[in-house]
């Protein structure tokens, strides 16, 4: 009962936060001096026998619903957004939701696959590092982890492209399908896509594995220093049993929490990776929409990102309470 009340309160709070976040983003977008509409109006006004720039601005603003004040405009947007209508994207000239549905799939699968790899690699390495604290292995793993955290994504991608696309021509530089994609059968198409997604997934794994490895190591260390581990060792249990049975199970608590918290992020897309590899996912399309000043699409994307972050926090907190019976929600 207590937990339910806690969850309800958190959800309510999240809604309020989301409201203000959307308001701030909307205000920023509307206040910016130049945007998509100005560009279109300028282009149209230069055509022969055209109306003046001011007339075009007035007409286009009315068409795009930008003639209202910021607050009024925001509430109109909000009223529609609650009903799931985020308007039409200016850049892609289709409803925002339709574009989102088109591009979310590839982003999701890319993130999901890289997440699986991350966990498969980070957990064993983190545990090994903690088990042999201050050993050579520990230093190596810690430094690799911190180096991964410090890697500039764009530099990493450039290096990967240099090595695996140019020096060893194993992969294409950009794109998600090869040039003979149309001639392939269903299985061949699947393989072609998978082949093109290898480098982006490697990139995603490398840039996010560092923090996970450190997280596993820190939590494992904490558990290894706990009294019950000393007790287990004192009882004369084998080291394997201590680590695998007593320690690992307890590190699972923070890990499951972390995992739960990062699940919503799977839908957020990878802005840099998708853009630099030209993968038509949500990150790629939103980058171009934002660059063009496409207000409906950007509003949707940013609100969506904020929502995902809030959901992640909420999920982590709830999971923490669910997984760890010792936690009493206050």
């Amino acid at each position, binding site marked *: 009962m207590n937990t339910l009340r806690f969850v309800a309160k958190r959800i309510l709070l999240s809604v309020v*936060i989301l409201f203000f976040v959307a308001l701030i*983003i909307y205000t*920023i977008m509307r206040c910016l001096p130049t945007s998509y509409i100005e560009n279109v109006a300028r282009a149209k006004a230069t055509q022969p026998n055209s109306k003046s720039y001011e007339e075009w601005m007035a007409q286009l603003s009315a068409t795009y619903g930008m003639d209202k004040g910021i607050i009024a405009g925001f509430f109109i947007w909000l009223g529609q957004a609650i009903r799931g209508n985020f308007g039409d994207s200016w850049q892609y000239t289709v409803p925002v939701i339709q574009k989102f549905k088109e591009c979310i799939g590839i982003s999701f699968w890319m993130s999901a696959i890289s997440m699986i790899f991350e966990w498969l690699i980070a957990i064993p390495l983190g545990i090994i590092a903690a088990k042999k604290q201050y050993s050579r292995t520990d230093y190596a793993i810690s430094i690799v982890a911190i180096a991964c955290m*410090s890697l*500039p994504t764009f*530099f990493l991608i450039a290096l990967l492209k240099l090595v695996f696309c140019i020096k060893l021509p194993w992969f294409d530089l950009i794109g998600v399908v090869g040039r003979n994609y149309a001639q392939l059968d269903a299985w061949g198409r699947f393989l072609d896509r998978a082949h093109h997604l290898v480098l982006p997934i490697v990139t995603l794994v490398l840039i996010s594995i560092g923090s996970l490895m450190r997280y596993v190591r820190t939590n494992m260390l904490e558990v290894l220093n706990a009294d019950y581990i000393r007790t287990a060792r004192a009882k004369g249990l084998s080291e394997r049993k201590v680590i695998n049975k007593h320690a690992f199970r307890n590190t699972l608590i923070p890990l499951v929490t972390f995992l739960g918290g990062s699940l919503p992020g799977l839908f957020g897309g990878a*802005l840099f990776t998708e853009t630099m590899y030209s993968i038509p996912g949500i990150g790629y399309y939103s980058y171009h929409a934002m*660059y063009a000043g496409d207000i409906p699409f*950007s509003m949707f994307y940013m609100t969506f990102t904020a929502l995902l972050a809030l959901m992640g926090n909420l999920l982590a907190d709830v999971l923490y309470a669910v997984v760890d019976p010792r936690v009493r929600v206050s």
Partner: protein
Amino acid sequence: MAEDKNLHNVEDVNPDKENVSAQEEYSLNDDRRVKVLSPGAMVAKRFFRNRTAVFGMAVLIIMFIFSFIGGLITPYGESELFYRVDYQQKEYASAIENKEYRYKGTADFSAIVQAQMLLAINSHKDSFTWDKINYYVAQEADNLYRCSNEAGELIGIAYKAIFNPAKQGTSLELDALLETQKAYANGGGTYTVGGETYVMDAEGNITKDGEDFGYISVYNIQALMSDVFLSREFKEQVIAEIEAGVDDFVFTDVDGVEHEYKLAFVPANNRYTITQATETRVYDRYSAPSKEHPFGTDKNGMDVMTRLMYGGRVSLVIGFVVEFIATAIALILGGIAGYFGGWVDNLIMRIVDIFYCIPSMPILIIIGAAMDNASVPPKTRMIYLMLILGVLGWPGLARLIRGQILSLREQEFMTATEATGLSYRRRIFQHLIPNVVPQTIVSVTMGLGGTILTESSLSFLGLGVRFPFASWGNIINDVNDTYVLQHYLFIWIPAGVLLLATVLAFNLVGDGLRDAFDPKMKR
């Protein structure tokens, strides 16, 4: 590593020596037997024991020297352009051997009649009929035909050799041209047309009244630029070289200056082109690493090494300014929230929640793109960038500080400050804030790395620091050109390595500081 060793010497060897003699003088529980270190010294000792942290520190010191002192030492400016002299083969003239018939005639000699005449020539007929009129074709010489009408009047000729006048504006009438062509076919001679006497030598040079009138040849040689007049000697030499089949030749002009030319046959338009190597001053783009430019030059012809130095300066300065803004906001708001609690805390923490939730990268991209459209000057952009990054960067630290202060204010020393009647300001800023300094320093150090990463990512996208200012991010930006990615590694690899090293160093130092500040730390 050297620093590490030194420190051990100072700390371990000297006290030992003292202890040997001291043991005899001091009693067992004498305080003087124990060397007491201040908390700061303890932290420093623990920090310097951490090898990776010391390594990070060393890297940072090198980066600072490289960026701030390097920029002063380097002989070049941040956006100084370099040029190189390039020899480019520029097309100078073209020569074509005329293989087509050319026509000249009276008004009756229309294009259709010319075509019919060509047909007759090719089929070796001596007459043809066009539009119910009969025309007669007669061969005067090789590649020279005349066309006359029924009355036997000359109405046109077809020829291949071209008359080149000595002076511009001179031209030959139909009769004169026919005679000239005849003379050329016969290998020269003297002929008279319309009362004028012309003399042609074996090479086709024509003189009239003892004056150079022009010459005739099957080659048509024209300069590419209309203001260049090709001398007779030049044209003759070109023809001789073409017939000799050479690729390049040297021509000595009237003033005795030698010019080198290259001759090439272009099959596409059946033409010889004569190119001349001209000295051109071009930007020294993408020149390979050399003594003058250790990392070569970039696409604008600027020294990459110097750009890297100034880029480091920009990245570090932006990092520090941003962290300063963010820390100031975080300390004030976090401190107030933690100290006062209640509704103030609630309000401030909700603001923190909201700011924490704003997706910063998209906002930065949108603002960057808008500044692009508004063509904001690069310097103003940099200031905006720092402000925005600072304003978006404080919530995490504010949360941390508030949590710390919340627990600190319950401690006895705070009750004491209250009892002594200190003002709120003194209590917060003199007694609480100093206690959160360790966490703040750690967070700022880690944050510096993060800020530099964000800034360079934006600059890489072209939305952060812009030309002419250098930033490690916008130096790597060249890599978007696949050719640069593949061939000019010396431009983008050093920038990436410096960036990675700096961020890594900040993270290592931050990590080391966290461990050093943590009293529970065992080693």
